[in-house]
């Protein structure tokens, strides 16, 4: 028996890796800006 197709609108996949990437990117930008400010002060 073929199960009914899942409603595409409800497609909900885990994105933990993406969330971690967002946090790492933000931390990197803040650290870089801090270092840049120290270098060019």
């Amino acid at each position, binding site marked *: 028996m073929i199960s009914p197709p899942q409603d595409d609108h409800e*497609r909900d996949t885990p994105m933990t890796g993406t969330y971690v990437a*967002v*946090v790492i990117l933000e931390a990197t930008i803040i650290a870089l*800006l801090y270092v840049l*400010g120290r270098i060019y002060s």
Partner: protein
Amino acid sequence: MSWIDWAIVVAYLLWIVIDGIRRSKNTNKVEGYFLANRSLPWWAVGLSVMATQISAITLVGTTGQAYATGLRFVQFYFGLPIAMVILSLTVVPFFTRARVYTAYEYLERRFDVRTRTATSLLFLVGRAFSLGVTLAAPAVVISAILGWSIPTTVLLLSVPMVIYTSFGGVQAVAWTDVKQMAIIVIGLFAAIGILIFGITRDVGFAQALRLAGATGRMQAIDTRVDLTQTYTLWSGLLGGLFLSLSYFGCDQSQVQRYLTAKSIDEARHSLLLSAFVKIPFQLLILGAGVLTFLFYVFQTPPMLFNRAYDAQIAGGPHAAEYAALQHEFDAGVAVRRQAGIDENREQFLAADRKLQDIRARAVAVVKEATGDERYNDVNYVFPTFITTRLPVGLVGLMIAAIFGAAMSASSGELSALSSATIIDFYRRHFVKNADDAHYLRVSKIATLGWGLFACVVSIYAANQGSLIEVVNRYGSFFYGSILGVFILAILTKRATGTGAFWGLVAGMVVVLTVAFTTPIAFLWHNLIGAVVVVVVGLAISTYSR
């Protein structure tokens, strides 16, 4: 501006309107008109979300701010990426599964009609006036730069936007936002290229950055723990987090955007685009401001960028005093330029301080001569660079980008005002059982009506500078409190309708009290409002059961 630049601006406006109207073919139902039949790809929704946040004042005001003080304004956005992650995990799947048209619709299902109506009304009042200001603030600058009257400028900004939003609904808004975002990015990169070219004719790029650093303009991070400072690392991370949670999670102008996405995944991706790109993009805009400062170190700047009163002062009793200041300024510019080329730090800083002092005295003369106490120079820095230093063609592109930014910021708000009016008030309280065609017709009328209202408010506000400041400063009073109501709705099971309603009232009272009686910076108001609503709401819910 040459005829080529004018042709580019006119062609751009026509293209936006015609394409917007073309989009109306797919919006013959209310769901199509307000939610694009929940069919848009993540990248279009994501660019639309970003375009809505970039108003014309972001382009001209932020660059001017960076020209004057440097990169520190970027801290304002530090809470945004974290907020996007939290919203992707909580609100996005929640609203998408609930298949609501407005964020406030959900509050009736969870609490009661009173809480839904109160929050939606707060949104309508706040947004209606801020929409007027979103149009008025750039109109003031554009009218001064291009020599147009304010009503003409307001109408040129708002009529095309109202036409494509009324006819094409949110679909037209989203696709025009995508185009406007592309024009803004292309224009910014082109302007930055010209700025770097102008700077590196005299010195190396690294030397130029050292000069900017010497004046403090490269200091983006302020780690001080001081609640009275508007932009610090902590106010950005915490206050900015709550502001972003409230704006993207509870404000219909943003929620409506990701409700148009094809699926929960696509809605998440659209928000996460901002999480990745917003801070770098804002750094690009601020960087353009710092580069404009460096450009004018080596290329002679005007003493004041806002030349609206030049003729009046030249023909008045302060003419001699102003001319003497101009003479002193020209000599100071030459000294600073040479010190910059020689990289003589002490001499450069002394000359820069002297120039700042001359500019401050010139502003004082203008205010005294004209009686205009609200005279502002910062917002005119980047437009002056655009209209006087960019080559033909690029001027038109950048003016089109500023027009595009003004329209993309306001079209989303206009569509959201219309959807909240029809879904939360008209269909809920007044005409409950009409057919879809009727609701579609009144939705278009509501969009036109709000557009007209925004035009009237913006023409009035443009002549009342203090009103612009008031709306900008106090418009965010309600954000934290509304966020508190949604936290009660989504994250707690104990909260009742009575608790949420009175929690909302308590939150607003406390935020207004804090704002008017303490020096606490406004970003913290969002955190305070949300916490008060949750605490009071839970307490009342417990005792009212």
